[in-house]
């Protein structure tokens, strides 16, 4: 630095330029060699500051002619700009190196386990019910809850199942006394809703999800407690084709877009015609496999057109109104969908069982 800062009095234009060039060359070399950000900063102050060598050199301009002065002035500015830029570049480079070194030091083993996020999850039966609820809310249905401990009247008689009807054998019942029982289906909710519904305010479209109870011995495929979602639409012009379309939407929502359904005749006292509904097997796509017992179809729910007796008992004019009803078992849906082979798993609540399912729906 000392050579550069020598006094430069009485210099010619050429001399001055040479000195400036010389200064620039040496300064650039020095900048490039600097490995320290702080030193780069010091250099900037020294080289470009008010008391720096360029200013010093320019003082030698006094011997120059007025034509030459601007020339050397502009040359000096170029040198100053070059040095400024060189310093900036050097600083930037050193910053990059510094950051890189820092990051290098901060390196971690990304394969170490992440922190366990503490979050619980819904039961898979809840998930199935929730998907069904959302589907039907979207189609303008209301969701109606009702008592789990019911009157025989609503559970059976209003469903066209008088006492001593042979079809009562289809549902073994936990009675509390002669008149009171654990509901065997969620259809009593429909009976109660039908009784109350004001048809001048529009059609009745409802689903009733909930727990039901049957007098069954628990084993892999039977549970004395399980769930049902029953649906009901009553309006002036509701057709069995509407039922088919609605159930198709259910099958696609739960089991996948490419599923098809088929209806088979069946019997429920509260509907006529009554049908069992099969969905094309989601495991084999209908080709036949163990899940569908080689048939390509899996029985998933029961449905039908509401029996006129059921309408009449609820005080609805069966000549004007009609509708469809269906009932499905979220337990069975969940068993099929997830391949659960023992229904008791749903009610024993092993943490390892409950937490193994995704929540993507």
């Amino acid at each position, binding site marked *: 630095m000392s050579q550069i800062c020598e006094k430069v009095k009485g210099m010619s234009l050429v001399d001055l330029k040479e000195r400036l060039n010389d200064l620039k060359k040496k300064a650039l070399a020095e900048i490039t060699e600097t490995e320290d950000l702080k030193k780069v900063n010091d250099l900037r102050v020294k080289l470009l500051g008010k008391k720096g060598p360029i200013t010093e050199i320019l003082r030698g301009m006094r011997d120059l002619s007025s034509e030459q002065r601007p020339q050397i002035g502009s040359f000096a500015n170029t040198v100053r700009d070059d040095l400024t830029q060189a310093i900036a570049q050097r600083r930037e480079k050193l910053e990059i190196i510094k950051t890189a070194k820092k990051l290098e030091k901060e390196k971690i083993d990304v394969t*170490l386990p992440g*922190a*366990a996020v*503490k*979050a*619980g999850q*819904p*039961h898979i*039966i*809840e998930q199935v019910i929730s998907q069904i609820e959302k589907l039907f*809310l*979207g*189609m*303008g*249905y*209301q*969701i109606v809850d009702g*008592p*789990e*401990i019911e009157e025989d009247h609503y559970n059976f008689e209003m469903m066209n199942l008088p006492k*001593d009807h*042979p*079809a009562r054998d289809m549902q073994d019942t*936990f*009675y*509390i006394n002669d008149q*009171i029982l654990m509901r065997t289906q969620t259809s009593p909710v429909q009976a109660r809703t039908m009784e109350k519904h004001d048809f001048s305010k*529009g*059609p009745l*479209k409802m689903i009733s999800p909930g727990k039901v109870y049957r*007098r*069954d011995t628990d084993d892999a495929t039977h549970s*004395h*407690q399980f769930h049902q979602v029953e649906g009901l*639409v009553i309006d*002036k*012009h*509701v*057709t*069995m*084709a*509407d039922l*088919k*379309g*609605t159930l198709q939407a259910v099958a696609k929502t739960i089991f996948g877009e490419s599923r098809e359904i*088929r*209806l*088979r*005749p069946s019997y429920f006292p509260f509907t*006529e*015609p*009554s049908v069992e509904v099969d969905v094309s097997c989601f495991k084999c796509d209908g080709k036949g496999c163990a899940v569908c017992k080689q048939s390509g179809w899996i029985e998933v729910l029961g449905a039908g*057109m509401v029996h006129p007796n059921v309408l009449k008992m609820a005080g609805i004019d069966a000549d004007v109104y*009609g509708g469809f009803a269906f009932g499905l078992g979220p337990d069975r849906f969940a068993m099929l969908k997830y391949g659960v082979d023992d229904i008791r798993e749903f*009610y024993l*609540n092993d*943490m*390892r069982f*409950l*937490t193994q399912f995704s929540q993507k729906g």
Partner: protein
Amino acid sequence: MKISTKWLSDYVKLDIPANELAEKIERTAVEVDDVSCLASGLKKIVVGYTQHVSAHPQSDHLHICKVDVGEDKPLQIICGAPNIAADKKVIVALPNSRIADNVKIKRGKLRGELSEGMICSLQEIGFSENVVPKEFADGIYFLPDDAVVGKPVFDYLGMNENIIDLDVTPNRADMLSMRGTAYELAAIYDKKLTLKHPKVVEEGDTVGHYVIPSADSKLASTYLMRVITGLKVKPSPMWLQKRLWNAGIRPTNNLVDVTNYILLDYGQPLHSFDYDKISGKNVEVRLAQSQEKIKTLDEKERVLRPTDIVIADEKGPIALAGTMGGLRTAVTDSTTTVVLESAVFNPSLVRKTARYHNLHSEASMRFERGINHATVEEALDAAAQLIAKLGDGKVAEGIAAATKEEVHSVSVSIGSKKINDVLGTKISAAEIKNIFERLDFKVDMNSADKFTVEIPPHRWDISIPADLIEEVARIYGYDNLPATLPKGELTPGLYTYKQKVIRATKRLLEETGLTQAISYGLTTHEKAGQFMMEPSAATELAFPMSSDRTTIRMNLISGLLDDVAYNTARKVKNVALYEQGRVFYREEENERPREVEHVAAALTGLYAAGSWQYPKQPVDFFLVKGIVQHLLDSLGVKHIQFKAATGHEEMHPGRTADIYAGDTFLGFLGEVHPNICKEYSIDRTYVFELDLQKVIDLPKEQEVYVSVSKYPEITRDVALAVSKEIENSAIVDFINENGGKHLVNIELFDVYEGEHIAHNKKSLAYKMTYQDQSRTLSDEEVTEEFERVMKKIETKFDAVIR
């Protein structure tokens, strides 16, 4: 109902493979349980003739048999059956044959003697235990003498027949007979039906000479009897035995077999009495007297009720109508004269009797669901005729009728518009008419699309237009229905407020790390009444299945503790479960309980399991309290208070708090009493239970935005030494009340008990935050407010500022 396609072909010619037929039945009529053929998978099983049988020298029960199987030389077969005998036609599984259950038979040695195959029992070639005639139940089967040696046995035994097992729904009892099924298939395939009708040859005395029945038509709308005399009881011919066992019924003798055969053919249950054992001529169909007794065929003495219909002679009941005959008048091997009954009994009374006496049978099931009233007499004739033929007897002249109802067809009117409106189809009137006619219904077309349809008695399930719509739908084919969505007026699909709160509760608890459990609602009497939040009578099942499930729950925690126990027993130590569901409170005077939505949780072990980097976090009271606080805050519950509670029998007396919103009791939380943990075999467990309905019922406050102050907060920290007995909440409440208008928050940040403080004291450290909405507070005014409340605290709580 097991349908043999061979038998079916007597009535309707189909020539359709059994599997295809089954599929069609399933898609059009009733469910099919199974399609089977006994012979399938079996091979090289032939008729053999036992030329010579001698004892095996090395065995006390084996025999060496020389069996002619139609080859050059007889085979030597070792046989262990107790009934093995010479000069019999037997079932022989040849070397390299395959018998039931895919078992292969090979040539081999048995105790040193060569055995070239196996002489088989019916069970060994696939017959069910239930259908094997009793005399062959424990041994090999003897084929009829005309069986040709060396020929496969399958045809002789009816094993080549395809059997379609129908799962007949209660409404289609018409298909509980061969003839009913034939009607159905003729309709499905649009084929002609050829039913044979019996002609009875009558000889000898009139029936009135033997029996004079009487009946109340309310009990038996038709009650008919015939008498067959001069009978010999013996095994039925093969054709009949085959039909029975292929239908799943065990052949017994010619008398019993014929009644079973007619039951299958017509669906008409019959009963035969041994004439010689009936006292007197008069037989009455009546209701039982209270405490009257009968010993039924199963040799059980039954005490009857006045709802049981009985057939009685002079001495008392001789049969329980429609369910089971009496032992006293049962036919035996020595019976020579039979009184045969064919009737229609009151379905609901038969059902009651069958249920009460647990006597569900093929007969009772048919009476309950209905039978064809038009063929009661024809079935009687067919049975009488066949019994006489197979037993070398004679049918007495005439039918003794106690009651006999007139049977008419039923008319139902319907229009094709109605049918199409319900189905969403465009089926033409002509096509509908054709469907009805295929079903053997007579159709009168009143106008272009109005029909009067006459339903024959064999379809007694049809009586209203909806029944006809179903017939059209299924024959037309459900596959042909379009798939649409209901059109009608639009309705909003919305959750109710209650449903929203319940669903939000579940999601909020899941966020806090709790997983949803669904436990059993029915539990023991004891567990149902634990952890209760209000007094309630128990609601119990009248006839529980097991002592574990007798009572409906009045709390959720006990179910969750069962879940914790289940996990603990399976070495899952860390459990964090919640359950949302109903508890059932009942006032003594009510039959039905109130159903109240609750939510509860149970946690044990570690909340955070810890890892290489993060510490373990065991479950404790304050974690659970934090979860409850989070839940209630998020549900917008205001004025939440936790108060020390000692009144919960099943809870730790020093670690339980009642939860309030203002004055409303919402529930409780805390540690389960160690004695209860012991009963459940679980480790230290923390729980809470809330009455969610009360949360839902809290007044809904409109939430209003509060602007966030732009001015800085000033804080003051203070540690107070107070008596251990003083509760944090008392201090916090007091400071909140007296802290001055700028105090916006008070937060406990440390609790200390130990050597640096007197043993009966504790130190509580609080951070108090001051702020104003409209200006920056000065240090002085904060200090003034702070010191004012500290002075009050010192006197109020005898606190020392540390």
